[in-house]
Structures are given as structure tokens and as C-alpha cells.
């Protein structure tokens, strides 16, 4: 893996976080380059949030090296945070303030002049499509609106690095797509995005490069395409059988594909030509209730690496 404290925006070697006897992050190495969209993909409890909190200088590093823009979170926390935007997993909006005040005041925390805070707040209200709600209380806003306000708030100091911890968890599909669009625009402007997610579509949409985390460790690293090429086949054939049939297959599928995964409700056959697998299965006299041929996704990569699904 390339990267050094000087060339990388974020540089981690042997980064470890322990809470008492529990190890949340276990000696991970990674580098994030300026301008990149970098993702941590993994199930809940894999150590993604702990890693993000260490990068955000709100959680002391237990062991190992971590530098952000060449600075050490241990000693240079305020300086690092001054150039950082943080979107935490749970919205931490100030419910005693209005929508607009949330933005203005957050700018003040960064020491920006009041007039400048107002200017930026107005601009960000437009960006987050919240101009009409600017004088409203925060509490009645919808989940998507709160999320957009949280992102807008994280941008008030015009950060060049934005940390997003599960930015779209709990949002409906429309709200997610709007958010993705906004994040994509930020990336176009050169903002480095670091995000965690347990949605592989989100990772595929947004990330140039990602690491897969499981049980406090990084188990794979690369672009979404590279990971799929390396750990999965081009296509997957999903066969769904009637109740009880799957348990009695007894090796009838052997040899049909490069690799076969038995899930609770279906069988996944990994091969470069999914259609051919479906035909071959049919020729063996198997009659699945449904057959689906699709492209490999990061979900398949994760399944291969850990033997489990991402969202359980």
C-alpha cells in the first residue's frame, strides 16, 4: 500500500482502539489521498465508527500511528478539526436553535466572523434545499431534512475533508438519492470524502476506493471494481427453491459454477456466465422456483470474505 504521512491526507498504521478489554479497531493500516472518496464498508460493530471518531479527534488513539494532514490528533486536535467537516451517525443538531441558527452558530464555533457565517448559512440552506424551513425549529423536520442540515452544518467551515458516518442509514430511497447527489457535487469540488456504510450500493455509488472491515480488522482494500474482480466472479446466478428442496440438493449443483454459497433462502452460484449456469442447472433436472442472473456486487465480496451478509 502506498502512502506516507506527508502525501496522504489521512495516514494510519497499526491503528488500534480498545475500550477496556474490548478491541474495537485492531491494528488497521490505510491511507486516504486528497480528493478521494474513501469508504469503510462493514457490518455494524466492525469498528468503522471508532475509526471515524479517531480521525475526527474525538476519541483518543489507543495504539499505532494516525496522522491527519500530517498532524497528530493527540496534540493538534483543534487544528485538525478546524479544517474538518463531520457528519455523525446520529444527528446532533441543536434543538434549542432554529435551522438557520444551527448553521450560523456552528460557523461561530469555528471562529468565523458573524457576517461570513450568515453568508455561508444562506448558501448552504440553498445547497441543502432548506431555505424555506430556515426559521423553523429543528425537531419537526423529516429525517432526510435533518440529515441534509447536518451535512450543511458540517460544510460551514468549508472543510477539505468531510467525514460521514453512515450518511443515509434510515432514509427512504428518495432522500438517499438526493443526498448522494449532494455528496457527489462536493466530490466534484475537490472535497475529500471519507464515509462508512453498510450499504454496498452506497459504497459502489460514492467510493473511489474502500476497505472492507470485519471484526475490528481490514479484510480487503481496493476500488469497488477491483474488489469484485479479485474476490468474486463477473456474474451470479441466484436460485430459489421451494420449501425444503434446498436441503435435499445433496451436491446436485456441484461443478456448475466456480463457487457455490448456500444462504438460508437461496443458493448463489458464482460464474462469469450466469446464463449458462442457469441453463446447465435446468439440464440437470433442477426446477428452482425463481432464477435470477445478476452482476456481482460488493455484497458478494463481503460474503466471500466473511461468510456473512452485510445487513443481517
Amino acid at each position, binding site marked *: 500500500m502506498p502512502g506516507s504521512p506527508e502525501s496522504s491526507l489521512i495516514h494510519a498504521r497499526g491503528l488500534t482502539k480498545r475500550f477496556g478489554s474490548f478491541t474495537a479497531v485492531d491494528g488497521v493500516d490505510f491511507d486516504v489521498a486528497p480528493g478521494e472518496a474513501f469508504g469503510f464498508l462493514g457490518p455494524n460493530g466492525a469498528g468503522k465508527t471508532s475509526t471515524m471518531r479517531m480521525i475526527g479527534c*474525538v476519541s483518543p488513539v489507543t495504539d499505532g500511528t494516525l496522522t491527519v494532514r500530517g498532524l497528530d490528533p493527540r496534540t493538534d486536535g483543534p487544528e485538525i478539526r478546524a479544517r474538518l467537516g463531520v457528519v455523525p451517525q*446520529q444527528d446532533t443538531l441543536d434543538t434549542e*436553535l432554529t435551522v438557520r441558527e444551527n448553521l450560523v452558530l456552528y460557523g461561530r464555533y469555528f471562529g468565523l466572523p458573524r457576517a461570513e457565517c450568515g453568508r455561508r448559512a444562506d448558501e448552504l440552506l440553498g445547497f441543502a434545499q432548506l431555505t424555506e424551513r430556515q426559521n423553523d425549529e429543528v425537531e419537526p423536520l423529516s429525517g432526510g431534512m435533518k440529515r441534509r442540515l447536518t451535512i450543511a452544518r458540517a460544510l460551514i467551515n468549508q472543510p477539505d475533508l468531510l467525514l460521514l458516518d453512515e450518511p443515509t442509514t434510515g432514509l427512504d430511497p428518495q432522500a438517499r438519492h438526493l443526498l448522494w447527489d449532494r455528496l457527489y457535487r462536493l466530490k466534484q469540488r475537490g472535497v475529500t470524502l471519507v464515509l462508512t456504510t453498510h450499504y454496498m450500493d452506497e459504497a459502489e455509488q460514492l467510493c473511489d476506493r474502500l476497505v472492507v472491515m470485519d471484526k475490528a480488522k481490514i479484510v480487503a482494500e481496493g476500488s469497488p471494481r477491483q474488489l469484485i474482480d479479485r474476490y468474486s466472479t463477473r456474474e451470479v446466478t441466484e436460485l430459489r427453491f421451494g420449501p425444503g428442496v434446498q436441503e435435499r440438493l445433496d451436491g446436485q449443483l456441484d461443478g456448475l459454477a466456480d463457487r457455490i454459497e448456500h444462504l438460508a433462502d437461496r443458493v448463489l452460484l458464482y460464474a462469469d456466465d450466469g446464463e449458462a449456469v442457469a441453463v446447465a442447472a435446468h439440464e440437470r433436472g433442477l426446477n428452482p422456483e425463481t432464477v435470477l442472473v445478476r452482476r456481482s456486487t460488493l455484497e458478494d465480496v463481503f460474503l466471500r470474505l466473511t461468510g456473512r451478509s452485510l445487513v443481517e
Partner: protein
Amino acid sequence: MTLPLRVAPPLMFGSLRAFRLIERNLYVYRHGWIVIVSGFFEPLFYLLSIGFGLGQLVGTVPGPGGTEIPYQLFIAPALLASSSMNGAVTEATLNFFFKLKYQKTFESILSTPLSTADIALGELGWALIRGALYTGGFLVVMVALGLGVSAWLLLTLPAALLISFAFGAVGMAATSFMRTWQDFDLIQLVVLPMFLFSGTFYPLDAYPEPVRLLVQLTPLYHGVDLVRSLAVGVVGPSTVVHAAYLTVMGVLGLLIVSRRLDKLLLR
């Protein structure tokens, strides 16, 4: 060559950024300033009912230095000191707990350059500003009622702030250990007896010696006696002792609350 500008030695607690917290509270109370106004009336009502009502029966009592003073003049400074304590304790316990445990206000603030020490200092600063407003109002009333008998009275304002500082800091430190709202009953169990028995309503001579010594160890006694000596204009070494006691108490409280916030918020 010019020497690089030396960064000022970091303050023992926090930095000037703490003022941003005060600004936040100003924003919040812009929406609900009536809450602030209400705090002014409590000591005033006590002064009118006990000071002037009961005072008619009592007449004069021995004040600082032993000279007889009217009961109203005896009790007014004590009410000022107690309301400084009460105001600071309310802000530092209930309001602080809400922001700490439920609102997550501080967590978002810690993602900016502000530190936990800034938060502790800023919240305490806000409690002091509130306290100063009440004290100022009460002093105006005292003068209007003819209780302004000494120029030292002006110094009761900083003295009252010192009381707010001491109780606010210790109150926040205590709050950082609270788990549920029920725990706050314990605070009332400490605050109410202090209010009643710290020489607030009658001179300490009323107590037998051991009790008197015990009372003299409690912080509100020092606050009451400090403000009373200044209001009456009888200032001596004990004034300095009172101020020192309250200063040490506040600094210790701030140290503890900064530590605790680190532990609670920066995990």
C-alpha cells in the same frame, strides 16, 4: 529576523473560544428571555416578606463587627448570596445535565476546534452572566429601599459572581456524575439546608459552638458573610478568607468537570 510569535501560554482551562458557548446561550434565550426575568423576583419576594414583614418584629440584630444593624440590611446581602448560589446551581445541574445527556449539544461542538475545557468554561461563564443580571437588579432594589449604606456595596457584585463561579463549577462537577433525574434530589438535599442554616436569616450566635464551627465550614456561609461584610462596609481579613475559599472551590470544580467531560465525551 523576527522571532516567531510566541503562542500565549494556554489558559489553565480552555480558551477564548469558550465565548462561543456564551453566544449560543444568548441565541437560545433570545427565544425565551422570560425564563431569565423570573429569576430576578425570587430574592426580591424573600426580601419583602421576611426582611420587611418579619423585620418589623425583629428590629435590629448584630451585624459584621458586632454593631447592631436593621434586620432588612442583615438579610438582604444574605439573600443576594443565596440567590447567586441557587441561580448557578440550577444552570449547572438541570440545564447542564439536559445538554450533556439528552441534547448531545456538546458532542457536535467537540467536532469544532472547541475543547471540553472550553465547554466547561463557556457554560460556567453563561451562568455568571445570568447571575450578574440578577445581582445588578437586586442591588438597584436595595439602594432604592434605602439599604445602600456603604460604598463597599459596589463590590458585592463581583462577590456574588464569585459565589456563582464556585457553586456553578462544583454543581457542574456533581452533575457529571449524575445518572438520572432522580439523582438531583441529592443536590436539593445539600442546597436547601445551606440556604436555611448558613447565617442567612439569623446570626450564627444562635448555634452552640460545635454547630457554629460546622456551619462555618460550608461554602454558603462564606458567601453570605462575604457579601454581608461588603454591604455593611465592615471589611477585614475574614473577607479575604471568604474570597479565597470560594475561589479554590470554583477552581477545583472546574478541574473536575473538565476531566469528567473528557471521560464522558471523548471516549
